[in-house]
């Protein structure tokens, strides 16, 4: 089944890839007109209209949606997601918007995997694995990079390094790659160059890591701020997308390097043929960051993978120019070497997934000899980015809303349990007019410490008696016929509702130092929820999640 999913997702990647090439060729003859800056606006507007009006799907590149669904709903994804982002991103990128086709193919592949799992009524764990297979097949196919696809799916999407995931995902990666090779030929995405790397050039990459981390953080923050700003504009979403696209088109008039997914630019940069001075390269880096933020933040459709490659390679070349400027006598390697490292740095920084960055760059350039500096740049950039932005671009929203629930974590286990299944119903209910003497008789027969108190006539929940709170009365027989339970019950008791999230209930218990809480609906006592029962079920759930 992994092979089937890999094939289909690989096919989706090929379709998008070919569509982008066709659209680019189709629009090429329009590039000399003065109004060409309107093309990205039209593309983004159409893309947004398609998502909002035709397929009724929320905009965005979709990878967080896949991770969210894997985290919370066992990888359930809508069928429409298997094609919607392919079409919308084709419109955005093909018309010149600054975005990448990788995230759209990831959600398409993942949705294909999810819907195949649904068709065969597979369980949650199997479905999540097929979602990972879809993502792996898609990345493997679009980059002709099976290892990167596999690593990306496990590191970013599934988040669980277990053989039960890795084996099918590896199969899907191979299937996706094979489909791509069959239909498009076996070519490395970018040309391979040999670099003579000495110790100086290895250590110099540390500075590049700092620059890459800065660019990653800048891109992350600009994407978010553009998103916030665009939502303050009271115009339909397609108008906003057109505004963003128009701004990109205007930038593109002066710096065409910012337009489209930019693979051609990356090729030139790796080959060291860009031939621009430091100021222009630095400006192009910043312009590409701005264009990507304008495209995606204002409602265009696409991903950040390809822009990261372009920005990374531009940052790398900028850094090479800086090195040559400050230390002209040193023997620096060709700028293509720094372009490669910059790409790995940006991917690692934005995704905070160093392995994906390393393997992707190695596979798409065939440059195994740069593996040491690649590891250094990826590791340092990820660390620096993690310090300033604790969650990656994909995970930031999910982390902020508490939606990132990786398997085997506390939040995930608690999210899979709910209040109704933990309610203890074997409680002895007493009423407020009961004498303490009668209550003592009840205590003798009971094994519980908590006793809910209900109104004798209406049955409404009034409060609770905790034996610890009334100990002084229990050991004073004089009080037995003088005290009613209504006088000694705790009426300011924290209560839970069956609809409450268990995580919130546990937090409330921790904050107030409680061991049990009554569950109350419409002023009726339903049962008790206690930490002992939660722990018991928690262990069982943890065993289920961590066993194969």
């Amino acid at each position, binding site marked *: 089944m992994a092979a089937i999913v890999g094939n289909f997702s690989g096919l989706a990647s090929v379709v998008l890839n070919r569509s982008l090439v066709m659209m680019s060729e189709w629009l090429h003859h329009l590039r000399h007109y003065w109004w060409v800056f309107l093309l990205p606006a039209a593309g983004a507007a159409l893309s947004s209209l398609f998502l909002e009006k035709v397929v009724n799907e929320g905009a965005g590149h*979709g990878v967080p949606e896949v991770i969210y669904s894997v985290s919370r709903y066992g990888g359930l994804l809508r069928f429409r997601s298997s094609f919607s982002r392919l079409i919308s991103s084709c419109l955005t990128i093909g018309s010149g918007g600054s975005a990448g086709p990788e995230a759209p193919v990831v959600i398409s592949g993942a949705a294909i995997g999810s819907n195949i799992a649904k068709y065969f009524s597979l369980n949650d764990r199997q479905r999540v694995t097929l979602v990972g297979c879809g993502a792996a097949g898609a990345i493997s196919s679009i980059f002709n990079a099976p290892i990167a696809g596999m690593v990306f799916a496990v590191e970013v999407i599934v988040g669980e390094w277990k053989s039960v995931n890795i084996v099918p995902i590896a199969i899907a990666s191979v299937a996706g790659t094979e489909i791509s090779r069959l239909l498009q030929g076996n070519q490395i995405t970018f040309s391979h160059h040999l670099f003579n790397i000495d110790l100086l050039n290895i250590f110099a990459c540390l500075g590049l890591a700092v620059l890459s981390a800065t660019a990653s953080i800048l891109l992350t923050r600009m994407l978010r701020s553009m998103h916030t700003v665009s939502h303050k504009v009271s115009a339909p979403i397609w108008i906003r997308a057109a505004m963003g696209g128009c701004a990109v088109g205007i930038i593109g008039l002066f710096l065409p390097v910012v337009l489209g997914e930019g693979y051609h630019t990356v090729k030139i940069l790796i080959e060291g043929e860009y031939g621009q001075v430091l100021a222009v390269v630095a400006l192009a880096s910043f312009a590409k960051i701005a264009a990507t933020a304008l495209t995606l933040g204002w409602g265009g459709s696409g991903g950040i993978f390809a822009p990261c490659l372009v920005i990374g390679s531009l940052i790398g070349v900028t850094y090479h120019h800086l090195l040559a400027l400050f230390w002209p006598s040193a023997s620096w390697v060709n700028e293509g070497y720094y372009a490669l490292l910059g790409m790995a740095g940006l991917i690692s920084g934005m995704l905070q997934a160093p392995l994906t960055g390393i393997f992707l760059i190695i596979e798409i350039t065939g440059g195994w000899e740069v593996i040491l500096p690649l590891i250094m740049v990826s590791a340092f950039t990820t660390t620096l980015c993690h310090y300033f932005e604790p969650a990656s671009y994909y995970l930031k929203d999910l982390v902020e809303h508490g939606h990132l629930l990786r398997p085997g974590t506390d939040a995930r286990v608690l999210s899979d349990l*709910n209040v109704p299944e933990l309610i203890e119903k074997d409680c002895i209910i007493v009423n407020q007019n009961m004498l303490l003497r009668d209550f003592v008789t009840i205590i003798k027969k009971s094994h519980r410490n908590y006793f809910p108190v209900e109104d004798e006539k209406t049955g409404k929940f009034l409060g609770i008696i905790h034996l610890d709170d009334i100990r002084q009365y229990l050991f004073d027989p004089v009080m037995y016929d003088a005290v009613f339970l209504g006088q000694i019950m705790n009426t300011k008791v924290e209560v839970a509702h069956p609809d409450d999230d268990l995580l919130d209930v546990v937090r409330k218990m921790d904050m107030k130092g409680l061991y049990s809480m009554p569950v109350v609906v419409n002023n*009726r006592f339903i049962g008790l929820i206690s930490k002992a029962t939660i722990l018991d079920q928690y262990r069982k759930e943890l065993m289920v999640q961590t066993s194969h």
Partner: protein
Amino acid sequence: MENRLLHIFRNNPFGRETLLQSIYFCNKVGASPVIYIPKTTKFLMYFDNDVVQVDLDKSYLTSPETAIKNATELVEQAGMNARFFDPKHFTASTLPDIHTNFDYMCCPRSISDMSSKIGLGYIGPRVRRIVKAARFPVLITSPAFKPWKSITVFFGGSVNAVKALRLGFHVARSSGMSIDVFTQTGKYSEEDCMNMIKERNLEKEKDLYINEWHFFENNNFEDNLYEVPHDALVILGAYGHGVIKDILFGSKLEKIQSTISNNLLVAGPNYTTIL
């Protein structure tokens, strides 16, 4: 624990009729309505093996400032507490997730048509998907508020029909109403039906709750539907086929809903019986 019915509130006269229907149903079966007042025209429902995106029309967003007040008034008039569902989780940051741990859900025949278009037309694809995926039965209301005074169960002999019959027993027990069962003979005879009841140990419930079991010899199913009391809650099981399959091979559910204007309570293939 109390049973809960999910109701998607539409703040207009048609929505009022539907909510009145839900409240009446809740009163009869001892459930509490949980009302969701949509703030967007889309939301997602995650079931065990499916995710359904419900696309509402804009009439669901009518006068949001009075929606809570109007819904509360209707619920409180019936002597119940109004409870509102506030989504806590969102897919893609914008699509509210509506959880599916309810015991019933109320849907108009098509959840997304403008009220001006609503008639007995057809069951919308979203409602079909919900029926197919849900563990709870779906209450498909009549276009105008119509109190029901008896229960009718359609029993064709399938596994889903048995589920519907069990659901009928549950509603009969809660509401104190008796059941009329309708069976179109052909595939199963009267004797077969009685054997099924016996095999599933439902004889006691049959004697307790069933008023009359009607067996139709006439092959024209639509003609027989005239016998269904106009003021009965009709309970039936559904396979949950898609629209295309239904168009090609026909659907009993579609025939029933397009012929009679009664309230329907539909138990889908994943419905887990309460009894």
